[in-house]
């Protein structure tokens, strides 16, 4: 039921996640923000086991910020992905493993390119042009295969995202309703209305 999408475009990454927090058949909250801003140019959408998700996301957020404080320079997206992956992989074979799936989207200010990483609860990391987690991925990924353009403008990217959201609304039994959409580009992070 927790759906998240992300896609890259010309100099940006769009990350979107639904805003529903549900337990069994009850929607507890309909305006939850599931996208953490790890650094001025790094976004992370999380989903998975309730509790584990926020706990792990805050742990990552604080450690990424600590790196920036210590080194006066923010971690690049690829390095952040490696660090996050190692944290998950180390916890996997410990007593209590984090069960969190992530989409890490960032703008690398050194190479001036957008980067997107699909990370699953076992510590699998792969760099992709677009990605999704949750049941919504079964609908969104094929749409993105067809309509995604890595050189698209932000408006075109948001239109592609809208296609995915509409398809999930139409076909998924438990419709998430509202989505939070954030964009990261060379100027930083901002939220957009979809």
């Amino acid at each position: 039921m927790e759906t998240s999408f992300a896609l890259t475009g010309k100099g940006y990454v769009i990350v979107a996640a639904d805003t529903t927090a549900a337990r069994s058949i009850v929607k507890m909250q309909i305006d939850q923000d599931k996208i953490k801003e790890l650094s001025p140019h790094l976004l992370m959408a999380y989903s998975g086991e309730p509790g584990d998700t926020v706990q792990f996301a805050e742990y990552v957020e604080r450690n990424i910020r600590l790196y920036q404080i210590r080194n006066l320079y923010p971690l690049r997206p690829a390095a952040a992905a490696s660090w996050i992956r190692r944290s998950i992989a180390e916890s996997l074979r410990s007593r209590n493993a984090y069960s969190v799936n992530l989409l890490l989207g960032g703008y690398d200010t050194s190479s001036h390119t957008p980067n997107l990483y699909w990370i699953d609860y076992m510590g699998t990391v792969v760099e992709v042009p677009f990605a999704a987690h949750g049941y919504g991925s079964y609908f969104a990924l094929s749409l993105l295969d067809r309509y995604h353009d890595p050189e698209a403008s932000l408006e075109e990217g948001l239109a592609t995202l809208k296609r995915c959201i509409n398809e999930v609304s139409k076909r998924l039994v438990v419709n998430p309703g509202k989505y939070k959409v954030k964009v990261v580009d060379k100027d930083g992070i901002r939220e957009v209305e979809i």
Partner: protein
Amino acid sequence: MSIMEYNGGSVIAMVGKDCVAIASDLRLGSQALGISSNFQRIFPVTDRVYVGLPGLATDVTTLRERFRYRVNMYTIKEEREIEPETFAHLVSSTLYQHRFGPYFVEPVMAGLSKTPSGGFKPFIAATDLIGCLNFAKDFVVAGTASAKLFGVAEGLWEPDLEAEDLFETISQTLLNAVDRDAYSGWGAIVHVITKDKIITRTLKGRMD
């Protein structure tokens, strides 16, 4: 559902005349759902040794980093590059250390080992997930399409293939075997290692 088959992927290595080749598909999936068509599972260890790691993707990345660390330490301490046979034993001991909580990968190694006369001898090896070594003379296979790879390789391989012919043979073996396997495919990459150079080619295969 087997953990070894969760992400999918296959690797094969073959021996030729003064050359070796190692090839893999590029698919990463989450069971039946394909996630990436660009997942590298073959990594260079030295200029002359390559290792392919099919199996659970998180362990592929973890082991790649572990081996890189251990080989770097070896190179610093020994002040020389690691030989393929030594690396194979390094892989075996690393995996057996986790005998009762193993990494879910079945490594395949290919390289050229130095002979006392100064020449190079082709070398391939594979292990299972707990480090049991297999030093084959012809070819080694691993991954979800391993049974199919055995079949095609047995039919197509012959001894003393030159580098170009070895490339054709290993490519056809891989492409046809993964086409019969649902969890492998979505692109393929081949590395042919000779004493002077390594040629890497990406194959055009069925993307279904």
